[in-house]
């Protein structure tokens, strides 16, 4: 799928945004560098900041290829950053005692650059993943990057209505860390708890927004703790205690264990979230369904959106429009 369709879909929901942030992510966008981590950086000024980032990357591996991400001037979109991408191969020997040394290196680099190099922000770092975001309406951001020129097997798109950091490109969704990308509608009232929890595992929140914790929580629960996406969603949006009390003993024990172990990961407040990784996509809402989420399928394609109209504009013949239950994960798995 190229990006033209998702641009069209997102523009159906302009009413939900304010023209101050939009973004897209495409999985499978760089087949020629599929094995490299595609590290995307916003530079305030390339010549001042880039050497520091280059130096940091060189410490941990090899830059196979790098380029300024092509952009095309749009009337209302002020190019306040220079987006850059590195295709990077980390050297696994530099992170001994890790079962996932390459991922750990890249995660370390993301945290390091974002917290210690002013003027540089790594906003995407996964393999074969292209991320496009900026401050503007969805159509402008799509045209700024010409996302129709990219192909992917999995896309996310998001239209932002900022309150706190308007105009900040880093604040636009999707948020990405390694293989995870997240788009989020709503506000996480437990952010303060979630952030302190995730930071105790070495993550550093640097985006001034509640959404990035979702990417980190998924990374922690699924990649590092090896839980399935279904269980991870149960940890983030668990059943109520009085429902657990009525479950068969074994299921109740599982759910109790999840809540006791991952209590600080429970996300409260209104949200509809879609999380992607290379082999799957997961959509879910908060426990009392305060934000909308609609799904539909067509052949082997799965669509997840805030509104049916956005799905229908991409796939007029979509048959089975449904609204998932609160906290119920909708999981799409990538078929070869």
């Amino acid at each position, binding site marked *: 799928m190229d990006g033209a369709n998702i641009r069209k879909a997102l523009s*159906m*929901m302009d*009413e939900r945004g304010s023209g101050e942030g939009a973004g897209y992510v495409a999985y499978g966008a760089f087949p020629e560098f599929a094995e490299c981590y595609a590290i995307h950086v916003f530079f305030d000024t390339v010549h001042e900041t880039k050497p520091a980032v280059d130096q940091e990357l060189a410490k941990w591996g090899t830059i196979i290829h790098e380029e300024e991400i092509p952009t095309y001037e749009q009337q209302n979109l002020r190019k306040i950053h220079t987006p850059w991408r590195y295709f990077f191969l980390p050297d696994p020997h530099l992170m001994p005692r890790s079962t996932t040394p390459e991922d750990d290196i890249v995660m370390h680099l993301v945290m390091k650059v974002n917290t210690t190099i002013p003027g540089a922000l790594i906003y995407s770092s996964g393999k074969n993943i292209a991320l496009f975001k900026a401050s503007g309406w969805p159509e402008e951001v799509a045209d700024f990057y010409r996302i129709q020129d990219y192909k992917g097997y999995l896309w996310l798109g998001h239209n932002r209505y900022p309150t706190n950091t308007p105009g900040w490109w880093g604040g636009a969704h999707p948020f990405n860390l390694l293989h995870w990308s997240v788009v989020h509608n709503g506000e996480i009232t437990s952010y303060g708890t979630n952030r302190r929890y995730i930071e105790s595992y070495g993550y550093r929140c640097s985006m001034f927004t509640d959404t990035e914790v979702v990417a980190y929580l998924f990374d922690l629960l699924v990649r590092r703790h090896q839980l399935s996406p279904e269980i991870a969603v149960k940890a983030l949006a668990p059943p*109520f205690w009085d*429902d657990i009390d*009525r479950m068969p003993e074994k299921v109740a024990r599982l759910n109790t264990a999840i809540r006791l172990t991952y209590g600080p990961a429970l996300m409260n407040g209104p949200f509809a979230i879609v999380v992607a990784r290379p082999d799957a996509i997961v959509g879910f809402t908060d426990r*009392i*369904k305060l934000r*909308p989420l*609609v799904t539909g399928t067509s052949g082997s394609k799965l669509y997840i959106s805030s*509104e*049916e*109209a*956005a799905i*229908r*504009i991409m796939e007029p013949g979509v048959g089975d*429009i449904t*609204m998932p*239950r*609160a906290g119920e994960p909708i999981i799409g798995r990538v078929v070869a």
Partner: protein
Amino acid sequence: MNTVRIDARGMHYSLLNTAIRKAVASGVREIIVDNVMGQRFIADGLKGDATLTIHGVPGGDLGMFMSGPTCIVHGNCDHAPGNTMDNGKIIIHGSAGDAVAHSMRGGKVFVRDNVGYRAGIHMKQYMEKRPVLVIGGSYRAFLGEYMAGGLILSLGDPAVHPHTERGIGSGIHGGKIVIRGNIDEYYLGVGARTFTLSNEGMDEIIPLIEEYAGYFGIDPDPLIHESYTQVTPSSSRPFASKYTWE
């Protein structure tokens, strides 16, 4: 000219509503709107008694503050059709999103298929105005939350859509909810209680079943012979004893 056809393809909702208002003002009784795709607020605050036939998928808040007209939708509706509606009808040949008929104070909403969370939330009645929401398929949690008046009728077959959604009538302090089949007490919200629907109650819903069946071309008889549960407030002041004076 008694019928007007509007092609809404790519049209902003404000222009669409302006066109609808203009048609109504010029005495048009039938308005057909084609290619609706996500436009919000259709018929917002519209008065009179025109009929709008909408083809496509209207966006949120269809018929908000509407006072009189009828909207027939061939397609699904997004969130809150009938929001704070005053009078008139919305007939949906499809499903609708969350908070259907939110704060509705009069008129009727018929949904052929399913509704999302919090359908009929805070519906209320006054004098001759008694809103009605009829649901043909499933409903989700918090059906009739805060309900202060009016009637919600859920006709969905419990064999297909089992009653397992929490918070039915949570905080209900007026009006009633009538649901096909039996409800486990566990799924009732705070301040709600159930009774088997009486004969008088049945007499009240039969015309609504017939009306529903008429719109969607089904046989009302099997529905009329089903058994129903009525959910009503356990008190008109469910939270009256929550407070003590300083």
